[in-house]
């Protein structure tokens, strides 16, 4: 419907309603239809918070994939307003304070609202009562709920305006109950809340059990065995054939302080191949934890050369030796492990058990901290399960590479410690002596991929002795 004129703002809609302004809750799900009114008038939200001291405002905004898919409905004949992806993204950036939203608790719109505060006490109070979250589930319906009143609209060939929002007059209507249930679900941190993210949170592609990609969700959504995520496992060896391990940070909730494989991580949304992920993780985790992969200074750490599949049936050691001759002293070599029987690239699909620690909370909902400002964790732990598909890569470090070179990563807190171990020491320790200090993945590797560790370590000794 082209040429429709907007006559009121979201604020008018609420204000002019029978019940008037909300006293306890204002929930907005889907901001695209009201984005301009919202962003241009932070004082409206600030005033609402000031007038009603018990009011809590929750704004749940569209994710980027939702924006992309909304933009596909644009048609120049039928749509009244051009909703290109870039435009929707600009709106979103204004709301959260830039694409990356570096300061997730006070950027963009929240900061604009907080600027309206007269003193620090107000700021703290407003910050607590104004919540901005990204919806990563399908966004089907735009909702405004002010206390008991509900309005809704949905997206057709273009964005609805505030005039298109329909009020649900009777609480007895099924749609009223459906929306209330939906909001309860979304705002419950242990049900739908796992699919919400804060600006700047890491998002990961989700795969169904048949390995089809099904959307992008935050890390906390993946503690389920109904679906999977993709990662790489990198096993790093020095030129004496010893394997590098790292001890996970003492301040992470997931597998805190356990010894783990050399390196590894999720496939980034833009990685077109897992070899790209493996190279990136090596650079980020070991050398430049805070750096962007593409900007890394290759002069300092040498190149990472992909030598393809490590398959000694097909590429015998004595010949591979010649292939590695062209490496500079500071260069790294990486191989893709292959399955001993089939020769196919090695991919592990499994349920991984994670030991979860939980932050201790003060009564006001803030995290308890020690004298250094680090979070304090509770004693009790839980075991959670998550499904991974992991491609296995084997790295050979440059001559003279030692664990001292990982100090930077340790200082940055990405890992608390590193060490090299011979494969036989490692297997003895993981399987017999101290299994409790290793991650579930590490125990799996030492049991199921022992052949690979032993063979690759022997291969390195053969090549470099």
């Amino acid at each position, binding site marked *: *419907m082209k040429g*429709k004129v907007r006559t009121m703002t979201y604020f008018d809609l609420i204000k002019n309603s029978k019940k008037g302004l909300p006293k306890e809750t204002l929930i907005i799900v889907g901001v695209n239809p009201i984005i301009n009114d919202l962003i241009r008038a932070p004082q409206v939200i600030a005033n609402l918070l000031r007038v009603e001291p018990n009011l809590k405002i929750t704004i749940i905004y569209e994710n*980027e*994939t939702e924006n*992309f*898919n*909304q933009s596909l*409905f644009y*048609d120049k*004949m*039928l749509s009244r307003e051009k909703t290109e*992806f870039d435009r929707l993204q600009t709106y979103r950036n204004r709301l959260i304070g830039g694409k990356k939203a570096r300061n997730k608790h006070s950027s963009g719109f929240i900061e604009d609202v907080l600027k309206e505060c007269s003193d620090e006490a107000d700021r703290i109070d407003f910050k607590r009562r104004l919540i901005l979250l990204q919806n990563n589930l*399908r*966004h*089907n*319906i735009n909702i405004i709920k002010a206390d008991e009143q509900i309005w*809704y609209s*949905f997206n*057709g*060939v273009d964005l609805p305006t505030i005039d*298109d929002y*329909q009020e649900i007059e009777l609480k007895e209507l*099924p*749609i009223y109950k*459906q929306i209330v*249930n*939906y909001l309860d*679900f979304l705002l419950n941190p242990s*049900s739908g809340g796992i699919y919400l993210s804060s600006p700047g949170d890491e998002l990961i*592609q989700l795969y169904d059990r*048949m390995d*089809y990609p*099904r*959307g*992008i969700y935050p890390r906390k959504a993946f503690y389920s065995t*109904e679906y999977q995520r*993709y990662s790489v496992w990198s096993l790093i060896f020095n030129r004496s054939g010893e394997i590098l391990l790292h001890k996970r940070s003492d301040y992470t909730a997931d597998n805190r302080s356990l010894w783990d494989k050399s390196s590894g991580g999720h496939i980034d*949304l*833009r990685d*077109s*191949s897992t*070899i*790209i992920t493996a190279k990136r993780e090596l650079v980020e985790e070991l050398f430049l934890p805070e750096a962007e992969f593409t900007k890394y200074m290759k002069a300092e750490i040498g190149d990472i*050369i*992909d*030598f*393809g*599949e490590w398959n000694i049936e*097909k*590429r*015998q050691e004595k*010949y*591979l030796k*010649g*292939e590695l*001759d*062209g490496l500079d002293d500071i260069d790294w070599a990486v191989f*893709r492990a292959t399955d001993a029987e089939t020769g196919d*690239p090695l991919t592990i699909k499994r349920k991984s058990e994670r030991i979860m620690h939980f932050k201790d909370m003060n009564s006001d909902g803030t995290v308890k901290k020690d004298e250094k400002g680090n979070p304090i964790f509770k004693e009790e732990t839980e075991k959670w399960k998550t499904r991974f*598909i992991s491609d296995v890569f084997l790295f050979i470090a440059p001559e003279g590479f030692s664990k001292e070179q990982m100090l930077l990563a340790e200082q940055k807190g990405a890992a608390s410690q590193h060490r090299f171990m011979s494969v036989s020491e490692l297997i003895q320790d993981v399987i017999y002596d101290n299994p409790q200090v290793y991650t579930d993945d590490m125990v799996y590797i030492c049991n199921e991929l022992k052949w690979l560790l032993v063979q690759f370590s022997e291969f390195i000794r053969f090549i470099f002795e």
Partner: protein
Amino acid sequence: MDINSLSRFIQEAKEKIIFLGIFPLISYFENGKFAKLFADKLRENPSFKIDILYESGTEVFNQSLFINSGNNEDLYSFNVLKFHKNYFVGGEYGKTKSSFLGDILRNIDDDNINWINKIEKNIRLFQFNLRQSINIIKIDSKIWYAPIVMGTSKITSYISVDSKEPLYNELVDYLIFVMDKEKGGKFLSRHDEEMIEIYDLDDYPRGIYPRDAFLSTDYQRYSIWGLVFNRNGELLLHQRSKNTKDNRLLWDKSTGGHVDLREISTSLTAKRELIEELLLPEAEYTNYVRPDLGDIIDFGDWSIEKRIERNFRLSTDSLSDTDWIMFRPTEKNGFLPVRVKRVSQRQLYNKDSVMSVHETRFISDIYLYIAPEGFMDTYEQMKDKVKAAEKTGAAEDHKLLSIRDLCNWINHEKREGRAKTLFTDDLIYICNEYHWLLEEFAEFVKLAFKNEK
């Protein structure tokens, strides 16, 4: 809305029904109720049209995520929803007889064998791949909608819209958009269509759409380009089939294709495409078991800076006689793998063989292969290997050319103004921009295997 009144509206319908979203009504699609109603309708009015737009796999998956809401009344797991969807479309492969259409056929008891062809024209099933925010029923000019709040809705959720309400026109526009081939219709798919992951211009994956959706420069898809060399350093080219609607009869690179939804690394695509397009055009990759075709061994980066490999020939000594060598080339600086992002021009033919040029965006990873010795070192050997592909019409013809001959040929045809009628846009691009790669790799192959002659 309840089933009795819906049945009555269907019985009274004159011309056309559209269903967008089947899950709220799934039990009536399954229990024979609709099959009988639709069969009666067709018997009484042979020109009656019914369009049914069903939920995509990703939509179903995302609806299933609401299941952990604790309120499980109308919520179902992915497997349950997928089962019902497959029951409706006739299994993963969508066989007419085992689909909902089959149920209708079984209700039409006259022996007219033409029904099976006719029914697919009268009743069309499409998968809806855009974001689905509402379920709609339109019967002639009457409209009902059911918003999707959480998971699937029920028949009682449908709300009727009066034609005087502004919403009525919105919904009419929405359906016009969805059903128009030039608009939203390009995002609809048939059950057996190839589906491709869509990437925004910043390379983020944004959903799954059919091939027809990609004739736009607003977004991209991912593919690989495979360049196959024989042991003399000659490049294999193929001429595209006379039956394809896309770049018909043009000469193209050796192999290439889309990254499949389940391929996490483009090297997997590269291997699959080599097998499917060149070796076993009729085969499914996963069923590829013929030992005489050998393995494809990934040798990693091809970087002249870092892998001088003066004795590369030796590295291949332990390969079987039938094994292939695969490399991923790196850019001239030796670090990043070659990845081409560009707008490609495609010549598309319609049903009447009228050609028009369209633009589409690709991201393409390049892979280089060396064929086994004696596999295609001569024209005759090569022709023998590709005869299956040529016979089935997967490709029209093949050629082996030295890089110099190839580039001379293209340059000659450019001067004559015929290049675009003979070569794909991609092939012309490769010869322009990656001439260095073609020449260097051909020289490398010749040098590595020169002593074999």
